[in-house]
C-alpha cells in the first residue's frame, strides 16, 4: 500500500467522529452501568472483547497494524486523530497493554508469517487476548536468568516452570513465554520465546492479591505442557532478542510512546485529575490555601510534561535521532511522576485520603494509590533498571559488573 492511496488524516478523523458517536457509549454512562463492580473481573474482559469486535466491525481496529495482519495499515497521525476523537467513549483500553502494544507489537517484529496472520488478526477481531510470561519468582530485573525449562521432543517442546507478575493471565488466551532451551551456554544464549495457549491442562493460573486490593497480577504453574515447534517466536535459542524487543515495546507502552495504543493508556483513566484533586482540596477546606494550590498546579504540570516528553522521545526514536533505549527516559520520568503525584494527592487531601467521607465506607482512592504507588516505579521494569539503561546505553557509561558474564548458565551461582 502506498502513501498515495492512504485516507487523509482529516477524513479519517471525521469518519471516526461520526462512527464513535453512532456506535459507542460515553465512558461515564458505561461506568454507571457497572457501578458496584469492584476492580476488574472476567465480565470486564468479556466487555473488552465485545468492544474490540465492535471496533473491528466498524473498521476502526488495529489502526497502525499492517493490512495483511488484519489492521488498517494507517499512520501514527491517524491513530492520534482517532485517540483524540475517542476520548470520553467506552473503549477496550484494557487490550492496549499488553495485548496490542506489547505482545502483538513483538509478534509483528519477530514472529513467523503464519503466527502473525493468525494471531495478530485474531486479537484485532477481539477474539484473542495476550499475556506476558516473562518474570519468575527468582528472575525480575535479571530477566535472562529465567529457569522455566523447555525440552525438545520431536516437533515440539515440553515446558515446565513458574511465571509471575503476568497481568490478567486469568482472562488471556495466549502467552508469550520465555523459557530456557540450553543450560550449557551463558544465560542470554540459551533462551527461546514460545507462544503458549493459556487455557489448557498443565497451566494453572493463580491470582495474586495486592496491597491495593486488586488481583490483577497472576502466578502460573506450568507442568509438562507440550508446545509445537511452530509456536516458537523468532529463533530457537534466540529468545533474548525477542524478549529485548518485547521489553522495548513494554517501555514504549508504559512511557506513552507506543504507536499501538488505541484510545488511552489503560491506567490513565484511573488517575485523579487536577480538577478532582481541587475538589478534594475544597472538601478539606484548602481551596484558597496557596500551598495546596501550588501542589495542585505541580500535579497538573507533571501530567502535561509527561505527555510532552513522550512526544519528544517517541518522535526522536522513530526518526532515529535517539536510540530505542531512550524509551527509558519516559519510563523513569513517569515512574517518578506517579510517585510524586501520589504524594501530592495525599498531602492535599489530608485525612480525607485515609478515611472515608460521608458518601460511603469505601477507602478513598487517593490513599490507596499512595500505599500502592510502587506499582508505577516497579511495573514494566523498575526505575533502577531504567537508570542503568539510560546511563549505560544512552550515555555510554561503563556497564555494571556481571558475575555471570560468559559463564554457562548451569554453573552460575544462585541464592536460595
Amino acid at each position, binding site marked *: 500500500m502506498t502513501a498515495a492511496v492512504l485516507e487523509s488524516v482529516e477524513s479519517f478523523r471525521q469518519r471516526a467522529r461520526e462512527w464513535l458517536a453512532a456506535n459507542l457509549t460515553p465512558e461515564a454512562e458505561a461506568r454507571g452501568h457497572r457501578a458496584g463492580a469492584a476492580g476488574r473481573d472476567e465480565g470486564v474482559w468479556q466487555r473488552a472483547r465485545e468492544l474490540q469486535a465492535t471496533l473491528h466491525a466498524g473498521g476502526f481496529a488495529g489502526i497502525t497494524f499492517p493490512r495483511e495482519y488484519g489492521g488498517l495499515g494507517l499512520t501514527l497521525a491517524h491513530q492520534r486523530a482517532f485517540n483524540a476523537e475517542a476520548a470520553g467513549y467506552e473503549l477496550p483500553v484494557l487490550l492496549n497493554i499488553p495485548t496490542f502494544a506489547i505482545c502483538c507489537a513483538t509478534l509483528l517484529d519477530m514472529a513467523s508469517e503464519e503466527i502473525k496472520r493468525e494471531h495478530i488478526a485474531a486479537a484485532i477481531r477481539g477474539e484473542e487476548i495476550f499475556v506476558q510470561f516473562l518474570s519468575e519468582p527468582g528472575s525480575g530485573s535479571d530477566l535472562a536468568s529465567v529457569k522455566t525449562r523447555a525440552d525438545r521432543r520431536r516437533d515440539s517442546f515440553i515446558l515446565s516452570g513458574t511465571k509471575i507478575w503476568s497481568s490478567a493471565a486469568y482472562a488471556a488466551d495466549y502467552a508469550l513465554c520465555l523459557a530456557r532451551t540450553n543450560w550449557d551456554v551463558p544465560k542470554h544464549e540459551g533462551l527461546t520465546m514460545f507462544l503458549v495457549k493459556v487455557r489448557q491442562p498443565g497451566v494453572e493460573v493463580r491470582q495474586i492479591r495486592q496491597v491495593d486490593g486488586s488481583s490483577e497480577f497472576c502466578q502460573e504453574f506450568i507442568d509438562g505442557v507440550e508446545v509445537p515447534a511452530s509456536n516458537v517466536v523468532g529463533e530457537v535459542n534466540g529468545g533474548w532478542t525477542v524478549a529485548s524487543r518485547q521489553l522495548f515495546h513494554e517501555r514504549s507502552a508504559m512511557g506513552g510512546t507506543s504507536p499501538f495504543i488505541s484510545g488511552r493508556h489503560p491506567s490513565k483513566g484511573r488517575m485523579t485529575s487536577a480538577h478532582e484533586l481541587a475538589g478534594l482540596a475544597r472538601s478539606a477546606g484548602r481551596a484558597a490555601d496557596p500551598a495546596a*494550590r501550588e501542589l495542585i498546579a505541580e500535579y497538573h504540570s507533571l501530567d502535561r510534561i509527561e505527555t510532552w516528553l513522550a512526544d519528544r522521545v517517541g518522535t526522536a526514536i522513530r526518526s532515529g535521532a535517539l536510540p530505542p533505549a531512550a524509551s527509558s527516559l519516559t519510563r*523513569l520520568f513517569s515512574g517518578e511522576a506517579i510517585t510524586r503525584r501520589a504524594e501530592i494527592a495525599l498531602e492535599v487531601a489530608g485525612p480525607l485520603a485515609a478515611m472515608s467521607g460521608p458518601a460511603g465506607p469505601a477507602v478513598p482512592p487517593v490513599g490507596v494509590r499512595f500505599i500502592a504507588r510502587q506499582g508505577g516505579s516497579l511495573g514494566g521494569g523498575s526505575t533502577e533498571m531504567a537508570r542503568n539503561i539510560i546511563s549505560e546505553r544512552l550515555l555510554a557509561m561503563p556497564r555494571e559488573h556481571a558475575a555471570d558474564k560468559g559463564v554457562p548458565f548451569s554453573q552460575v551461582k544462585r541464592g536460595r
Partner: protein
Amino acid sequence: MRLDLTADQRLLQSATARFLASASPVAVTRALHAEGRSFDRDTWLRGAELGWMSLLVPEGLGGGSVSGAGLIDATIIAEQFGAIAAPGPFLPVNVVAFALAEAVHAQEPNAAAHAGLLKRLLAGEAIATWACWPPGGGWDPEAGAIAAIPEGEGYRLTGVHEGVEAAADADAFLVLARVPESTAPEGLTQLIVPATADGLTVTPMGTLDLTRGFGRVRYDGVEVGPEAVVGSTTDGRPGQAADAVERQFQVAVVLQCAELVGVIDTVLEFTRQWLADRFTFGRPLESYQALKHRFADLATWSHAAQAATYAAAEAVHERREDAAEVVSIAKAYVGQRATDIVQDCVQLHGGLGVTWEHDIHVYLRRATVGRVTWGTPSQHRRRIADLLNV
C-alpha cells in the same frame, strides 16, 4: 536541543554556536565582566547580521524567520546564548522588537515613529529593553506599571522600575505604565522612552550574574509626546495594552526557558566528560552506579525541561488558548530543574566545582538568575492554579 530541526534550523543553530564560541567564549565574558562591561557592541552588530533580532519581526518590516515559526527559531538562538553563557541582551531586545512589530503590523497611528527604532534594533545599532518590574521583587508585569498622567497631547511619567535587563546599555525603554482611572482613557499602556529623556535616571543593580547586567530606572516627571505610545487603538487612544503585555511576557518566558535549557545542556556535557576523565580508587567516576544513577536522573530532567520549553514555544507561536498555562508549566519546571541540575553537577565536580576558576559557577549564576526572574517556579505554579480555575 530540539530533535526535529529542519536543515535550515540546524544551519542557524550551528552558525550561532560557531559564532558565539569564537566571539564570546566564557574567558572573554569573564574579561568583560572584570572591566565592568556586560557585553561587546561590536559582537552585537555582527550578531545582528546573523539575524538575531529579526526572527520575531515579519519580513515586510525588515525581519524574517528561518522556518516560518519565528519564536521556534528564536529559541534555537536563545539556547546557544545559554549554552555558551554569552552576554548580550538577546531576550529584552527581541521582546521589544516583537512588541514594536506587533504595533506596526497592526497599523497603529504611531507606526512610523516606531518603525525607525525597530529598524535600528534589527541592525544591532540600538539596544532597547522592556521596563516592567515593580521595585521590591514583584513579578506580575501589570503590577509594575508606573503612572502616565496625560499632559497636553502627551504624558508625564512618574515611578520606578527594577530588574530591567541591560538598562545601563539601553538606548530606549519600552515602559509599562497605567493611565490613572480618574483621567480617561484608562488602563495599561506602553510607551517608548529614549534613555536620554529628561528626568530619566538609570542606576545599575548588583547581580549574581557575570554575563548580564540589570538596572533600576527612575522616572521623575519624564515628558513624552503622544507618538511614544505603543499598542494604542486605531483612533490613537492608549490603554489597551493588557493582551500585548501578556504576549510579550509569554515570549520572554519562552526565550528564558530556552536559555536555561542551553545552560543545562552545556553543564551536563562537561560534567559527563569530567565523570569519564576523573579516576578514583582506580576507576573512573562514571563507573560508580551511585553516580550513574544520579546522572540518569539529570539527563531525564534535562529532556523533560526541553520538552516543556518547546511545548511552550509552540503554544505561544500558535497563539493557543492554553499558551499562558503551558508557558507557566514550562517556567515552573525548567526554572527549578536548571538550578537542581547545575548544583548537582557542582557536587559531582567535587571541590573543583566551587572554585572561581571553574566555569561551572558562571552557568550556576545564570541559571539562578533565570530561575528567579520572569517569575519564580512557585509564582508560576500559583498562576497555573489561577489559570486552571481550581
